[in-house]
């Protein structure tokens, strides 16, 4: 992690932040309101480093100086750090428990409870994890149930192990505490809020 802005070019952010961030937010809100639905992020700018466009747009829209960000080693590159610091001002932290947002790769996952899960009295003080996956709508389909889903939904997210879904069951059982997850691939997102039960 570099501590000062590098001399290389920083990837561009939004051209028209109020309107682009509004459209991205409505996409994210649709994803949270309809867990399992694949939402294509409008106006996703070219992303720095190994971040995908959807993750970059998510951070530009929701991260700022009030939201400590934790980056998995894969994403903790000067390009990404400079992009985040320059465009959002979010402090990049080394301690997972401090993070409001975190960006992880599907193949280097960590137990959810190493992040903030909120408290019984303030369950909103939990982290939101953006997990980059190879593809959405591909891979084994699982049955999701919970608020926002009419009955049940069959949702396929590629690149996740059996262990991930065991961890998810443990996270879901903490409700109303627990982390919320956003899967990102390319310029697409799928949200998995803590209230969703997944049959694995």
């Amino acid at each position, binding site marked *: 992690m570099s501590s000062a802005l590098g001399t290389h070019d920083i990837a561009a952010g939004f051209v028209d932040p*109020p309107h682009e961030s509004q459209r991205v937010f409505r996409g994210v809100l649709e994803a949270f309101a309809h867990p399992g639905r694949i939402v294509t992020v409008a106006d996703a700018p070219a992303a720095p480093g190994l971040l995908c466009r959807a993750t970059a747009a998510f951070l530009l829209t929701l*991260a700022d100086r009030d939201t400590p960000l934790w980056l998995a080693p894969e994403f903790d590159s000067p390009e990404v750090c400079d992009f985040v610091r320059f465009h959002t001002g979010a402090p990049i932290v080394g301690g997972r428990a401090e993070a409001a947002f975190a960006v992880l790769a599907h193949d280097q996952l960590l137990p959810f409870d190493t992040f903030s899960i909120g*408290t019984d009295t303030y369950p909103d003080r939990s982290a939101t994890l953006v997990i980059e996956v190879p593809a959405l709508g591909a891979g084994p389909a699982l049955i999701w149930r919970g608020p*926002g889903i009419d009955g049940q939904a069959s949702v396929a997210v590629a690149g996740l192990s059996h262990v991930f879904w065991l961890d998810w069951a443990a996270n879901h059982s903490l409700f109303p505490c627990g982390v919320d997850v956003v899967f990102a691939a390319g310029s697409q997102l799928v949200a998995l*809020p803590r209230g969703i039960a997944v049959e694995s």
Partner: protein
Amino acid sequence: MPDIPVQDAAYNYAYLDEQTKRMIRRAILKAVAVPGYQVPFGGREMPLPYGWGTGGIQVTAAIIGRDDTLKVIDQGADDTTNAVSIRRFFARVADVATTTRTEEASVIQTRHRVPETPLKEGQILVFQVPIPEPLRMLEPRETETRTLHALSEYGVMQVSLYESIARHGRIAKTYNYPVMVNERYIMSPSPIPKFDNPKLDRSPALQLYGAGREKRIYAVPPYTPVKSLDFDDHPFEIETWSECCALCGSRESFLDEMIVDDTGKRLFLCSDTDWCQERQGVLPEEPPK
């Protein structure tokens, strides 16, 4: 000629600054993730007094965009002071199309009613909430109500409903009737008549609730169970009327009672003006600017 709304360049888009919108947006996402839980947020001073919809306006400002069509109702009516001024506010600061038709709206900000026309998936209903805490009249301390929610300890609410039955022979609460969301949190549905409570249950639309004075945001995602509290031997019931609407003849909508002359002659009218006009086949007027 109606004025074409032009965004007021003296303000950021949708009035609030971007940092404030991000803060509210994060609160909305957590509210959607924990249905019925009240998320604290840094409510801002708005250019109207508390009680006129400052919470709802902040939620609307955080979500609205130029692609949206906004409807604002106050007690079901599109043409009352609060509704007209909020609609004009957003036409001016957010350059957004407005409508009075429920089915044309993508965002509906409401004070104290849910439209009669069934809502669709993709629509967002924003409620203005005066007192977000359903237990507040039973327990004034915030630290205590927060603990009661954390422990899902809602006996005090059941006791208050029981006392109402003991005193009146029925649950006498007619508005702001408490609901259980997703079998976890008791929630205030805002002061909508209990007539509207069934419309909240498994609604395809997203419900967002904003309380400006108390600085709380909460939400009910689509298709989420919302159960009005009751007892097995005193099941939840909605209001009924022996009359029908004097203008459209509706028997299935919420009716307001009006005194129309000095001798006390009474009329019943639909509270939802759009519903009533639609049934009468009246074309909507241009939304008042």
